């Protein structure tokens, strides 16, 4: 990690990622080509302070920065903690209960104590206005403005801070919705007002309703936060662009973020995948799985043919009680397995790991803060994979006796096995659970995971990466240079990005390329306009087109990326062919003879920003320098069936071209990489650990 002696010029790109526990700062100094890092505790009461502390730790000045890139958990936390604004919902007459009714499913089918989703807006604050569009976008009942004014009076009387508007079929014709919004804004000038078509122009009224309600609910708080951050930056002498990370990993300008708050729900995890994508570009890799493991969960995203894959809807708060958000997001799969996941033997004698977590308090037994239940971290410590005195660069000592006691009492005893086998069992179960997250975004998408590289980061990712890769048959693991700061690092590589989607049902057989062209132009025009409104001049603008298609009669469409020349050539057969192929890849089957149709058109307009080159590290010999060797300790490897003396290395002393063969442990400030027997690691020119994974024992 490079800490500079002197500050440089005002060509710094500064990125700050606020997570639940830590705020990470990464800065790239274009003058020197150096990467600067800072980590500080998050400050929930005033998040801005945590950022400033981190910036100071990285030894960067706001005044030197040309751009401040920011991701924050504020949006998702406001939603999950239910701490948003007093919000009202305005819908088409006859449909105010759409939000509460939802999709009526009961996934936990046998649980009589099952609970469905709880709307963000209570029914007493759901109002109706008289109007109706048909599915074709024709006016069936004209908008009764008197009914809108009457609702506004109620809204004033209730003293709401935010208003969400969702009218039926506004994705085809938004005129009524736009008019209702204008009236509400005029009547309640201080309220945060959001209309559904501004966020989603796709059909499905509950999902769109939930999206706009979430935006309105978090709007006042999140926009205030962004404003405060903006002001703080200005006061600190910052004169550059303030950009926020969206759930796609793309950036948008801070004023845009103040009205479309829901787009930043998953900014941190998305930025990690962008970092993995940047790494792929640098290393010439086309396909990789980005794997992030922290204290409570493990997350996987995927880079396929150089692009990070996104999805069109996310379920916030778990499947059973989900509040859907229908906007493009990074396609990330999450499992409840992290370092803090609890292991337990239940009354039937079954061994379970997670999803319950020890959290930060009391934390794993080995933290010595009163935790008595064993966790994945305790198992790592007992097996020697973590060093008791090396945790967080030695800032914290782990309590081996507590870890052993917890595993012995809660796992080994009840199962009648010894300590080491119990600890190893916990890790094996955790490994397979995490392997499912990786498979969920790869093999289940029809991608051959074995041919992908696994890019592992987050505090705990590098500890488990090699085991997970073996489980799936992946041959290559990359542990980036800054696994503990990787999401902030990823932000430095992000581009401005605007995603536009429009539902447009059309059979391919009847498709008019003139109509498609006009629609794409409209979407792209909106994107360009947003890009211009950001006030930032990108290096260049790229446009990607895609269409959601399905066989006639099917429901769920597949998003098919379409090269521009398909449209230039007006080639309906090529459209169909691309769809057939995508369907085959994703589901292992297609029906070439069946007619297909378009459901939605998608355009992504990106303003490509200059990327920092990756910093090269000093070159060394094949053999690491003596100072990199920290000694040996006994580490248990299931592959060998025993504990063996295993060398440990200090990551900061490694140089490019250094090679280490497993078994070995490589330690750095916020993370530990385990090389299993048979693994061969080489430090690449950028300081990444490139691991060739040994074969899985039969």
């Amino acid at each position, binding site marked *: 990690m490079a800490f500079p002696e002197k500050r440089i010029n005002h060509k710094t790109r500064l990125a700050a990622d606020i997570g639940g526990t830590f705020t990470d700062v990464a800065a790239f100094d274009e003058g020197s080509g150096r990467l600067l890092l800072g980590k500080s505790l998050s400050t929930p009461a005033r998040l801005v302070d945590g950022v400033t502390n981190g910036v100071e730790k990285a030894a960067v000045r706001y005044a030197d920065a040309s751009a401040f890139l920011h991701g924050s958990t504020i949006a998702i936390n406001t939603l999950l903690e239910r701490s948003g604004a007093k919000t009202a919902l305005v819908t088409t007459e006859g449909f105010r*209960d759409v939000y509460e*009714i939802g999709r009526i499913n*009961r996934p936990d089918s046998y*649980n009589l104590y099952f609970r469905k989703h709880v709307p963000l807006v209570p029914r007493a604050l759901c109002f109706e206005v008289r109007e109706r569009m048909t599915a074709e976008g024709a006016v069936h009942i004209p908008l009764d403005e008197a009914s809108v004014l009457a609702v506004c009076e109620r809204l004033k009387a209730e003293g709401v801070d935010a208003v969400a508007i969702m009218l039926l079929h506004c994705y085809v014709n938004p005129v009524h919705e736009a008019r209702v919004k204008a009236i509400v804004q005029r009547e309640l000038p201080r309220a945060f007002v959001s209309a559904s078509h501004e966020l989603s122009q796709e059909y499905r*009224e509950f999902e769109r309703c939930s999206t706009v309600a979430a935006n309105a609910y978090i709007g006042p708080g999140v926009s205030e936060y962004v404003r405060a951050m903006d002001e703080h930056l200005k006061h600190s002498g910052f004169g550059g662009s303030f950009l926020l990370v969206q759930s796609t990993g793309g950036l948008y300008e801070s004023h845009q973020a103040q009205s479309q708050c829901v787009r930043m729900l998953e900014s941190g995890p998305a930025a990690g995948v962008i970092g993995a994508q940047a790494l792929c570009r640098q290393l010439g890799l086309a396909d990789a799985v980005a794997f992030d493991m922290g204290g409570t969960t493990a997350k996987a995203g995927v880079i396929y043919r150089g692009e990070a894959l996104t999805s069109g809807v996310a379920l916030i708060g778990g499947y059973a009680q989900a509040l859907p958000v229908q906007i493009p997001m990074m396609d990330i799969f999450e499992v409840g397995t992290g370092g803090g996941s609890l292991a337990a033997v239940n009354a*039937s004698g079954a061994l379970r790991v997670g999803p319950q977590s020890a959290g930060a308090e009391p934390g794993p037994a080995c933290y010595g803060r009163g935790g008595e239940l064993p966790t994945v971290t305790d198992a790592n410590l007992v097996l020697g994979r973590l060093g008791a005195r090396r945790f967080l660069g030695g800032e914290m000592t782990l309590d081996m006796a507590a870890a052993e006691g917890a595993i012995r009492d809660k796992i080994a005893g009840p199962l009648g*096995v010894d300590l080491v086998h119990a600890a190893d069992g916990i890790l094996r179960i955790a490994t397979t659970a995490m392997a499912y997250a990786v498979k969920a975004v790869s093999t289940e998408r029809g991608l051959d995971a074995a041919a992908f590289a696994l890019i592992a980061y987050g505090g705990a990712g590098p500890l488990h990466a090699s085991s997970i890769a073996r489980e799936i048959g992946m041959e290559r693991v990359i542990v980036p240079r800054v696994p503990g700061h990787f999401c902030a690092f990823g932000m430095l590589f992000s581009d401005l990005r605007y995603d536009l989607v429009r539902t447009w049902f059309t059979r391919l057989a009847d498709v008019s390329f003139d109509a498609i062209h006009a629609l794409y132009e409209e979407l792209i025009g909106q994107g360009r306009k947003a890009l211009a409104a950001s006030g930032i001049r990108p290096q260049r603008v790229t446009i990607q087109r895609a269409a959601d298609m399905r066989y006639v009669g099917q429901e*769920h469409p597949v998003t098919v990326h379409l090269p521009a020349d398909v449209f230039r050539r007006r080639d309906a057969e090529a459209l169909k062919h691309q769809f057939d192929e995508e369907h085959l890849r994703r*589901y292992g089957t297609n029906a070439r003879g069946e007619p297909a149709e378009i459901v939605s058109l998608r355009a992504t307009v990106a303003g490509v920003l200059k990327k920092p080159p990756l910093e090269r590290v000093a070159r060394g010999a094949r053999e690491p320098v003596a100072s990199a060797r920290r000694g040996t300790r006994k580490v248990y490897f299931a592959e060998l069936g025993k504990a063996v003396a295993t060398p440990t290395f200090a990551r900061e002393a490694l140089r490019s071209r250094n090679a280490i063969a497993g078994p070995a442990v490589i330690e750095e400030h916020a993370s530990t990489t385990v090389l299993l027997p048979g693994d061969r690691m080489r430090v690449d020119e950028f300081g990444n650990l490139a691991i060739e994974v040994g074969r899985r024992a039969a």
Partner: protein
Amino acid sequence: MKRMKSKKQRQADAVLTEIVRNGVIAVTEEMKTNLMRTAYNMIIYEALDFTVGLYTPEGETISIGLGLPSFIRGMAETVKAKLRHFGEKGLEPGDILVTNDAYTTGSHLYHFTFSLPIFHRGKLSGFACCMAHWTDVGGVLGGVTTDIYSEGLQIPIIKYARAGVVNQDLVDIIRMNVRIPERAMGDLRAQITAVKTGERRFLELLDRYGRDEVLAAIRNIMDQSEVAARARTRTIPDGVYEAESFMDDDGVEIGKPVPIKVRVVKQGEEMTIDLSQVAKQVRGFYNSGTTTGYSCAQVAYKCLTSPTDYPINEGSFRSLKVVLAPGTVVSAVKPAAMRWWMTFPMTVVDTLFKAMEKAIPDRTIAAHHADLCVALINGISPKDGRFFLAGIGPMGGGFGAKLTEDGNSATVCMNDGDTHNHPVEQMEAKYPLLFERHALRPDSGGAGRYRGGLGTEQAVQARSPININVQVDRVHCAPWGLAGGASGAGNQVTLRLGGKEIADLPNAKVLMKRLNPGDAITVRAGGGGGFGPPHEREPERVANDVRQGYVSLTAAAESYGVVLDPRTLEVDQAATAKRREKKP
């Protein structure tokens, strides 16, 4: 099992068992995703009316993907029937077996069930199965059927594919007999995708951990589930518990109730569910087969003993005995009409919960709307001049209250689990319909210390001529309360024909009625029953219900004895105390 094991062996057992448990759940979830995403009809892809599962070489359930509770038993019985039919020797790699025989699946002919025997290095190692509800299998269009022959094409147990070669004759026969062949073929392909996914992923598990080891782990999973179910059963007081309810009618003899009588005997760590006293099979199409009789008992038993134990597997039911007499509405024999098989069993399950009220008030639940509340429509699409078939619904109704909680509002009935409703925007884009209203029904939740959930209503107008068929029950046997709680509102159907409201139908069954443009149908799903005396509900909760519009001012006073200031909606403490004094 009793032989001594080494430490390492025991550790391997516990760890591998858990790995395999996670593994089989992942397999059936992926099967489910693939089926749902590639299916062609809204019943599968939106309503998720299907079940996928993995079975042992003997046909025992290893894992069922979240789907239809009422089909919890359907595929296991079907796999066993297929095994009996062909014998293990009659199966070879590349085979895919199929049937839609109503008396095997216990349900209707729409349920096409595919089973793929999974061979690992030449050894039969399990089955991947998929049942899905097809849009149409021929037979009489609408109306009520009175025997199986009028309900469509019956496919006995045969091979859809033999050693990898598809039986084209079968495909041609199906295509000729169904009204919308391209949809049927699309759904068939989706189901094949699902069972092949199951095969591929299960083989990966077997390759990774070894066939015998995985099958042993599966036995462990079942043993663990059995231990859990027995332990929980032991906590239910021993005794004989009975309850009774009724269905409106069978759609043929209008107004003649169909009694549902159940008996539960709990002794030690075992439970016997006796359904031999439910009504004899009926002429109308509300019958289901023995498999479904078992399903009723299993669903109730799982809800009461191991509701969140996954995967759903055979072990959970070893401590359950089921008594059925042949020829009842849940054990019907050929040629009983089965097309609307799913309605009565839900009330059987509800009645079992009622029976357990005295034994385990903390674990049971008041009654729910117990019907999918679907209106089937057909007609000629004005867009393309083609024949269409679709369903309005399922609709969410109210679930019953419990000892410590209000019931859920607007939730799909017990037959179904992860079943979704159809977006109004989707329905209007596909069919000539205009939805006038989709709303909660205030005051439909049964009053109680804890209130039943609210039902919903949908008013739908035809934009061009359509035919409708509605088979809804439980109008007259409204969802009952428990422990002094009041009933919720029953299901209801009304029509508007030529501008005239028709609200006095004798039941909620409307057969082959023509709706002309502007005519409308309103389907109302019932609310759940309440739990405990309504006068014991905290006045502040009642006041909040009124503020949210769940309960009217009038009902607050009359049902709960809670008087509110009509302007502020604050509780009038004095008036409330006075009103509540009157009732014991």
